[in-house]
Protein backbone atom coordinates (compact mmCIF):
# COMPACT_ATOMS: atom_id res chain seq x y z
CA UNK A 1 0.00 0.00 0.00
CA UNK A 2 1.41 3.35 -1.05
CA UNK A 3 -1.54 5.35 0.17
CA UNK A 4 -1.73 7.09 -3.19
CA UNK A 5 -5.15 7.69 -4.65
CA UNK A 6 -5.98 6.34 -8.12
CA UNK A 7 -8.95 5.85 -10.37
CA UNK A 8 -10.29 2.33 -10.01
CA UNK A 9 -9.64 -0.12 -12.84
CA UNK A 10 -13.36 -0.78 -13.28
CA UNK A 11 -14.22 2.84 -13.99
CA UNK A 12 -14.83 4.36 -17.43
CA UNK A 13 -14.73 8.09 -17.99
CA UNK A 14 -14.65 10.95 -20.48
CA UNK A 15 -13.24 14.42 -19.94
CA UNK A 16 -15.38 16.98 -21.72
CA UNK A 17 -14.13 20.31 -20.47
CA UNK A 18 -14.96 21.62 -18.05
CA UNK A 19 -16.73 18.54 -16.72
CA UNK A 20 -16.29 14.80 -16.52
CA UNK A 21 -18.64 11.87 -16.75
CA UNK A 22 -17.66 8.62 -15.10
CA UNK A 23 -19.17 5.16 -14.94
CA UNK A 24 -18.50 2.84 -11.99
CA UNK A 25 -18.82 -0.85 -12.76
CA UNK A 26 -19.02 -1.54 -9.03
CA UNK A 27 -22.26 0.34 -8.54
CA UNK A 28 -23.44 0.39 -12.19
CA UNK A 29 -23.95 4.13 -11.84
CA UNK A 30 -23.00 7.06 -14.07
CA UNK A 31 -21.82 10.34 -12.54
CA UNK A 32 -21.40 13.90 -13.74
CA UNK A 33 -18.37 15.34 -11.97
CA UNK A 34 -18.07 19.11 -11.90
CA UNK A 35 -16.23 21.71 -9.79
CA UNK A 36 -13.84 20.26 -7.20
CA UNK A 37 -14.86 16.63 -7.69
CA UNK A 38 -14.27 17.01 -11.44
CA UNK A 39 -10.92 18.70 -10.82
CA UNK A 40 -9.71 15.98 -8.39
CA UNK A 41 -10.85 13.19 -10.69
CA UNK A 42 -9.20 14.88 -13.69
CA UNK A 43 -5.98 15.19 -11.68
CA UNK A 44 -6.04 11.46 -11.00
CA UNK A 45 -6.62 10.65 -14.68
CA UNK A 46 -2.98 11.72 -15.26
CA UNK A 47 -1.47 9.47 -12.58
CA UNK A 48 -2.03 8.24 -9.00
CA UNK A 49 -1.26 10.85 -6.36
CA UNK A 50 -1.09 11.23 -2.62
CA UNK A 51 -3.58 13.40 -0.78
CA UNK A 52 -0.80 15.86 0.02
CA UNK A 53 0.17 16.18 -3.63
CA UNK A 54 -3.44 16.79 -4.64
CA UNK A 55 -3.81 19.41 -1.91
CA UNK A 56 -0.65 21.20 -3.07
CA UNK A 57 -1.80 21.18 -6.67
CA UNK A 58 -5.24 22.41 -5.70
CA UNK A 59 -3.76 25.22 -3.64
CA UNK A 60 -1.60 26.28 -6.60
CA UNK A 61 -4.35 26.00 -9.21
CA UNK A 62 -7.75 26.64 -7.71
CA UNK A 63 -9.37 29.59 -6.02
CA UNK A 64 -11.79 27.75 -3.76
CA UNK A 65 -14.78 29.70 -2.54
CA UNK A 66 -15.27 27.34 0.41
CA UNK A 67 -14.87 28.46 4.02
CA UNK A 68 -13.17 25.13 4.70
CA UNK A 69 -9.45 24.59 4.23
CA UNK A 70 -8.14 23.13 0.98
CA UNK A 71 -7.04 20.01 2.91
CA UNK A 72 -10.56 19.45 4.20
CA UNK A 73 -12.18 20.04 0.82
CA UNK A 74 -9.80 17.61 -0.93
CA UNK A 75 -10.18 14.98 1.82
CA UNK A 76 -13.98 15.19 1.63
CA UNK A 77 -13.89 15.03 -2.17
CA UNK A 78 -11.68 11.93 -2.17
CA UNK A 79 -14.01 10.28 0.36
CA UNK A 80 -16.98 11.23 -1.78
CA UNK A 81 -15.38 9.73 -4.93
CA UNK A 82 -14.31 6.60 -3.05
CA UNK A 83 -17.81 6.12 -1.67
CA UNK A 84 -19.08 6.14 -5.25
CA UNK A 85 -16.51 3.49 -6.18
CA UNK A 86 -14.70 5.81 -8.58
CA UNK A 87 -11.32 6.07 -6.81
CA UNK A 88 -9.41 3.96 -4.28
CA UNK A 89 -6.17 4.05 -2.34
CA UNK A 90 -3.42 1.87 -3.73
Amino acid at each position, binding site marked *: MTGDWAIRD*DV*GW*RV*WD*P*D*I*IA*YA*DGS*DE*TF*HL*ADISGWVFAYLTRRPASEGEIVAAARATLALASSESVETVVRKTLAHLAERQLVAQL
Partner: protein
Amino acid sequence: MQFRRPERHGGDTLFLRTGPFIVGLTTRIGALTAALRQLYPVAIVSDAAAFADFHVAVRRMEGVRCWIKPIIRFEHDGVQVLRPLPLSQALTLFEWGVNFTISQTVHNYLVLHAAVIERGGRAAILPAASGAGKSTLVAGLAYRGWRLLSDELTLIDLDTLELIPLARPISLKNRSISIIRDFVPDAVMSHEVKNTIKGTVALLRPPEDSINRASETAKPAWFVFPTWNAEARAELRPVEKAGSFMALCRNAVNYHIHGRRGFDALADLFDRCACLQFRYGSLDDAVEVFARLAAS
Protein backbone atom coordinates in the same frame (compact mmCIF):
# COMPACT_ATOMS: atom_id res chain seq x y z
CA MET B 1 -49.86 -8.18 -47.46
CA GLN B 2 -51.29 -11.53 -46.50
CA PHE B 3 -53.84 -12.64 -43.96
CA ARG B 4 -53.16 -15.98 -42.36
CA ARG B 5 -55.44 -18.53 -40.82
CA PRO B 6 -57.22 -17.71 -37.57
CA GLU B 7 -55.06 -18.46 -34.56
CA ARG B 8 -55.83 -19.77 -31.11
CA HIS B 9 -57.71 -16.72 -29.87
CA GLY B 10 -59.31 -15.91 -33.20
CA GLY B 11 -58.52 -13.22 -35.70
CA ASP B 12 -56.29 -12.96 -38.74
CA THR B 13 -52.57 -12.42 -38.55
CA LEU B 14 -50.99 -9.59 -40.48
CA PHE B 15 -47.22 -9.46 -40.90
CA LEU B 16 -45.69 -6.01 -40.90
CA ARG B 17 -42.05 -5.25 -41.53
CA THR B 18 -40.90 -2.34 -39.43
CA GLY B 19 -37.20 -1.56 -39.53
CA PRO B 20 -35.23 -4.76 -38.89
CA PHE B 21 -38.23 -6.47 -37.32
CA ILE B 22 -41.29 -8.36 -38.47
CA VAL B 23 -44.36 -7.91 -36.30
CA GLY B 24 -47.08 -10.55 -36.49
CA LEU B 25 -50.34 -8.87 -35.46
CA THR B 26 -53.41 -10.96 -34.72
CA THR B 27 -56.66 -9.05 -34.54
CA ARG B 28 -60.31 -9.09 -35.50
CA ILE B 29 -60.61 -5.32 -35.49
CA GLY B 30 -61.16 -4.44 -39.13
CA ALA B 31 -60.71 -0.69 -38.60
CA LEU B 32 -57.24 -1.34 -37.23
CA THR B 33 -56.06 -3.44 -40.15
CA ALA B 34 -57.57 -0.90 -42.57
CA ALA B 35 -55.61 1.89 -40.90
CA LEU B 36 -52.41 -0.17 -40.97
CA ARG B 37 -52.85 -0.83 -44.69
CA GLN B 38 -52.93 2.91 -45.16
CA LEU B 39 -49.88 3.62 -43.00
CA TYR B 40 -47.67 0.65 -43.89
CA PRO B 41 -47.34 0.51 -47.67
CA VAL B 42 -47.62 -2.87 -49.34
CA ALA B 43 -43.87 -2.97 -50.01
CA ILE B 44 -43.02 -3.28 -46.34
CA VAL B 45 -45.66 -5.82 -45.40
CA SER B 46 -44.30 -9.32 -45.66
CA ASP B 47 -46.37 -11.59 -47.82
CA ALA B 48 -44.61 -14.79 -46.88
CA ALA B 49 -43.75 -14.42 -43.24
CA ALA B 50 -43.64 -17.67 -41.39
CA PHE B 51 -41.51 -16.02 -38.78
CA ALA B 52 -42.12 -12.90 -36.73
CA ASP B 53 -39.78 -11.25 -34.23
CA PHE B 54 -42.80 -10.17 -32.21
CA HIS B 55 -46.16 -11.88 -31.95
CA VAL B 56 -48.65 -9.29 -30.80
CA ALA B 57 -52.43 -9.07 -30.68
CA VAL B 58 -55.03 -6.36 -30.25
CA ARG B 59 -58.20 -7.92 -28.86
CA ARG B 60 -61.52 -6.89 -27.42
CA MET B 61 -61.90 -7.41 -23.69
CA GLU B 62 -64.75 -9.64 -22.64
CA GLY B 63 -67.55 -8.96 -20.15
CA VAL B 64 -70.90 -7.17 -20.04
CA ARG B 65 -69.39 -3.70 -19.62
CA CYS B 66 -67.39 -4.20 -22.78
CA TRP B 67 -70.60 -4.60 -24.77
CA ILE B 68 -71.67 -1.15 -23.64
CA LYS B 69 -68.28 0.48 -24.04
CA PRO B 70 -65.90 -1.74 -26.04
CA ILE B 71 -62.42 -1.97 -24.55
CA ILE B 72 -59.34 -3.48 -26.18
CA ARG B 73 -56.03 -4.79 -24.92
CA PHE B 74 -52.57 -5.19 -26.46
CA GLU B 75 -50.77 -8.49 -25.98
CA HIS B 76 -47.21 -9.54 -26.61
CA ASP B 77 -46.69 -13.31 -26.68
CA GLY B 78 -50.16 -13.71 -25.19
CA VAL B 79 -49.45 -11.46 -22.21
CA GLN B 80 -51.23 -8.14 -21.82
CA VAL B 81 -48.95 -5.12 -21.80
CA LEU B 82 -50.05 -1.50 -21.38
CA ARG B 83 -53.44 -0.49 -20.02
CA PRO B 84 -56.55 -1.45 -21.98
CA LEU B 85 -58.07 1.40 -24.00
CA PRO B 86 -61.36 2.16 -25.73
CA LEU B 87 -61.88 0.46 -29.09
CA SER B 88 -61.64 3.85 -30.83
CA GLN B 89 -57.97 4.00 -29.82
CA ALA B 90 -56.95 0.68 -31.41
CA LEU B 91 -54.47 2.30 -33.79
CA THR B 92 -52.61 4.25 -31.12
CA LEU B 93 -52.66 1.25 -28.78
CA PHE B 94 -51.06 -0.86 -31.51
CA GLU B 95 -48.36 1.73 -32.27
CA TRP B 96 -47.58 2.37 -28.59
CA GLY B 97 -47.67 -1.35 -27.91
CA VAL B 98 -45.15 -2.12 -30.67
CA ASN B 99 -42.86 0.70 -29.48
CA PHE B 100 -43.14 -0.61 -25.92
CA THR B 101 -42.44 -4.18 -27.03
CA ILE B 102 -39.36 -3.14 -29.00
CA SER B 103 -38.04 -0.99 -26.17
CA GLN B 104 -38.53 -3.76 -23.62
CA THR B 105 -37.04 -6.63 -25.59
CA VAL B 106 -34.50 -5.44 -28.16
CA HIS B 107 -31.38 -5.41 -26.03
CA ASN B 108 -28.91 -6.32 -28.74
CA TYR B 109 -29.00 -2.58 -29.50
CA LEU B 110 -28.52 0.42 -27.27
CA VAL B 111 -31.95 2.05 -27.42
CA LEU B 112 -32.54 5.73 -26.75
CA HIS B 113 -35.80 7.62 -26.58
CA ALA B 114 -35.00 9.90 -29.49
CA ALA B 115 -35.77 10.52 -33.15
CA VAL B 116 -33.19 10.13 -35.93
CA ILE B 117 -32.97 11.81 -39.33
CA GLU B 118 -30.20 11.63 -41.93
CA ARG B 119 -29.00 13.70 -44.86
CA GLY B 120 -25.86 13.39 -46.95
CA GLY B 121 -24.70 10.37 -45.00
CA ARG B 122 -24.76 12.11 -41.61
CA ALA B 123 -27.46 11.59 -39.00
CA ALA B 124 -28.88 13.79 -36.28
CA ILE B 125 -30.18 12.20 -33.08
CA LEU B 126 -32.97 14.28 -31.54
CA PRO B 127 -33.80 13.44 -27.93
CA ALA B 128 -36.63 15.43 -26.42
CA ALA B 129 -39.19 15.37 -23.69
CA SER B 130 -42.84 15.05 -24.62
CA GLY B 131 -44.22 18.37 -25.87
CA ALA B 132 -40.86 19.72 -27.06
CA GLY B 133 -41.95 19.67 -30.68
CA LYS B 134 -39.73 16.77 -31.71
CA SER B 135 -42.27 14.84 -33.81
CA THR B 136 -43.47 17.98 -35.59
CA LEU B 137 -39.91 18.94 -36.43
CA VAL B 138 -39.00 15.43 -37.56
CA ALA B 139 -42.15 15.14 -39.69
CA GLY B 140 -41.40 18.46 -41.36
CA LEU B 141 -37.76 17.63 -42.02
CA ALA B 142 -38.58 14.13 -43.27
CA TYR B 143 -40.68 15.75 -46.01
CA ARG B 144 -38.00 18.36 -46.80
CA GLY B 145 -34.94 16.37 -47.79
CA TRP B 146 -34.05 14.45 -44.63
CA ARG B 147 -34.46 10.69 -44.38
CA LEU B 148 -36.45 9.48 -41.40
CA LEU B 149 -34.79 6.68 -39.47
CA SER B 150 -37.05 6.88 -36.44
CA ASP B 151 -39.52 9.17 -34.73
CA GLU B 152 -39.44 7.54 -31.32
CA LEU B 153 -36.66 5.00 -30.71
CA THR B 154 -33.01 5.26 -31.69
CA LEU B 155 -31.41 1.85 -32.23
CA ILE B 156 -27.61 1.93 -31.95
CA ASP B 157 -25.36 -0.94 -32.99
CA LEU B 158 -23.11 -1.40 -29.96
CA ASP B 159 -20.10 -2.48 -32.06
CA THR B 160 -20.18 -0.08 -35.01
CA LEU B 161 -22.19 2.77 -33.43
CA GLU B 162 -24.23 2.93 -36.64
CA LEU B 163 -27.89 3.88 -36.38
CA ILE B 164 -30.45 1.29 -37.45
CA PRO B 165 -33.53 2.54 -39.33
CA LEU B 166 -36.90 2.03 -37.68
CA ALA B 167 -39.05 4.22 -39.89
CA ARG B 168 -42.43 3.76 -38.27
CA PRO B 169 -45.39 6.13 -38.63
CA ILE B 170 -44.78 9.50 -36.93
CA SER B 171 -47.08 10.19 -34.02
CA LEU B 172 -48.48 13.72 -34.23
CA LYS B 173 -50.40 15.25 -31.39
CA ASN B 174 -52.96 18.01 -31.10
CA ARG B 175 -51.89 21.20 -32.93
CA SER B 176 -49.07 19.39 -34.74
CA ILE B 177 -51.66 17.53 -36.82
CA SER B 178 -52.94 20.64 -38.59
CA ILE B 179 -49.43 22.13 -38.81
CA ILE B 180 -48.18 19.09 -40.73
CA ARG B 181 -51.37 18.87 -42.82
CA ASP B 182 -50.66 22.43 -43.97
CA PHE B 183 -46.93 21.81 -44.35
CA VAL B 184 -47.26 18.54 -46.30
CA PRO B 185 -50.73 18.63 -47.91
CA ASP B 186 -50.25 15.37 -49.83
CA ALA B 187 -48.89 13.34 -46.91
CA VAL B 188 -50.79 10.21 -45.90
CA MET B 189 -52.17 10.55 -42.39
CA SER B 190 -54.42 8.30 -40.33
CA HIS B 191 -57.78 9.37 -38.94
CA GLU B 192 -57.57 11.43 -35.74
CA VAL B 193 -57.74 9.39 -32.54
CA LYS B 194 -59.34 11.60 -29.93
CA ASN B 195 -59.21 11.63 -26.13
CA THR B 196 -56.02 9.63 -25.75
CA ILE B 197 -53.75 10.27 -22.77
CA LYS B 198 -51.74 12.48 -25.13
CA GLY B 199 -54.78 14.30 -26.48
CA THR B 200 -55.74 13.92 -30.14
CA VAL B 201 -53.26 11.78 -32.09
CA ALA B 202 -52.83 11.12 -35.80
CA LEU B 203 -50.15 8.97 -37.42
CA LEU B 204 -48.20 10.16 -40.43
CA ARG B 205 -46.84 7.72 -42.98
CA PRO B 206 -43.09 8.19 -43.49
CA PRO B 207 -41.92 9.33 -46.95
CA GLU B 208 -41.37 6.55 -49.49
CA ASP B 209 -37.62 7.18 -49.58
CA SER B 210 -37.33 6.54 -45.84
CA ILE B 211 -39.26 3.30 -46.19
CA ASN B 212 -37.33 2.12 -49.23
CA ARG B 213 -33.98 2.68 -47.47
CA ALA B 214 -35.02 0.79 -44.34
CA SER B 215 -31.93 -1.42 -44.42
CA GLU B 216 -29.45 1.44 -44.88
CA THR B 217 -27.77 2.36 -41.59
CA ALA B 218 -26.49 5.87 -40.87
CA LYS B 219 -23.47 7.39 -39.15
CA PRO B 220 -24.29 9.76 -36.29
CA ALA B 221 -22.93 13.31 -36.54
CA TRP B 222 -25.03 15.44 -34.19
CA PHE B 223 -27.10 15.32 -31.04
CA VAL B 224 -29.75 18.00 -31.39
CA PHE B 225 -31.97 18.81 -28.40
CA PRO B 226 -35.05 20.61 -29.78
CA THR B 227 -37.52 22.82 -27.97
CA TRP B 228 -40.44 24.61 -29.55
CA ASN B 229 -41.43 28.09 -28.54
CA ALA B 230 -43.86 30.15 -30.62
CA GLU B 231 -41.74 33.27 -30.28
CA ALA B 232 -38.34 31.65 -30.83
CA ARG B 233 -36.15 32.39 -33.82
CA ALA B 234 -34.81 29.12 -35.26
CA GLU B 235 -31.29 28.74 -33.95
CA LEU B 236 -28.74 26.03 -33.24
CA ARG B 237 -26.35 26.57 -30.35
CA PRO B 238 -23.57 24.38 -29.00
CA VAL B 239 -24.39 22.84 -25.64
CA GLU B 240 -21.98 21.25 -23.17
CA LYS B 241 -21.60 17.50 -23.47
CA ALA B 242 -21.50 16.22 -19.91
CA GLY B 243 -24.91 17.60 -18.93
CA SER B 244 -26.39 16.43 -22.24
CA PHE B 245 -24.95 12.96 -21.72
CA MET B 246 -26.51 12.69 -18.27
CA ALA B 247 -29.87 13.93 -19.52
CA LEU B 248 -29.80 11.33 -22.26
CA CYS B 249 -28.80 8.54 -19.83
CA ARG B 250 -31.74 9.34 -17.60
CA ASN B 251 -34.04 9.17 -20.60
CA ALA B 252 -32.45 6.15 -22.31
CA VAL B 253 -34.53 3.04 -22.75
CA ASN B 254 -31.99 0.31 -21.96
CA TYR B 255 -28.70 2.08 -21.11
CA HIS B 256 -28.85 0.61 -17.60
CA ILE B 257 -28.98 -2.94 -18.97
CA HIS B 258 -25.74 -2.68 -20.94
CA GLY B 259 -23.52 -1.60 -18.05
CA ARG B 260 -19.99 -0.58 -19.01
CA ARG B 261 -20.56 -1.52 -22.67
CA GLY B 262 -23.49 0.89 -22.85
CA PHE B 263 -21.46 3.67 -21.23
CA ASP B 264 -18.55 3.17 -23.64
CA ALA B 265 -20.86 3.11 -26.67
CA LEU B 266 -22.78 6.22 -25.66
CA ALA B 267 -19.61 8.07 -24.63
CA ASP B 268 -17.95 7.16 -27.96
CA LEU B 269 -21.04 8.48 -29.71
CA PHE B 270 -20.74 11.78 -27.82
CA ASP B 271 -17.04 11.93 -28.73
CA ARG B 272 -17.96 11.72 -32.41
CA CYS B 273 -20.99 14.01 -32.40
CA ALA B 274 -21.48 17.72 -31.95
CA CYS B 275 -24.00 18.57 -29.22
CA LEU B 276 -26.49 21.27 -30.15
CA GLN B 277 -29.55 22.89 -28.67
CA PHE B 278 -32.23 23.89 -31.16
CA ARG B 279 -35.03 26.34 -30.46
CA TYR B 280 -37.61 27.04 -33.08
CA GLY B 281 -41.02 28.59 -33.55
CA SER B 282 -41.61 28.08 -37.27
CA LEU B 283 -41.19 24.89 -39.24
CA ASP B 284 -40.10 26.77 -42.38
CA ASP B 285 -37.27 28.44 -40.46
CA ALA B 286 -36.32 25.11 -38.91
CA VAL B 287 -36.01 23.54 -42.37
CA GLU B 288 -33.63 26.31 -43.45
CA VAL B 289 -31.46 25.98 -40.35
CA PHE B 290 -31.24 22.21 -40.75
CA ALA B 291 -30.37 22.57 -44.46
CA ARG B 292 -27.44 24.78 -43.42
CA LEU B 293 -26.44 22.20 -40.81
CA ALA B 294 -26.40 19.44 -43.44
CA ALA B 295 -24.31 21.61 -45.74
CA SER B 296 -21.79 22.56 -43.03
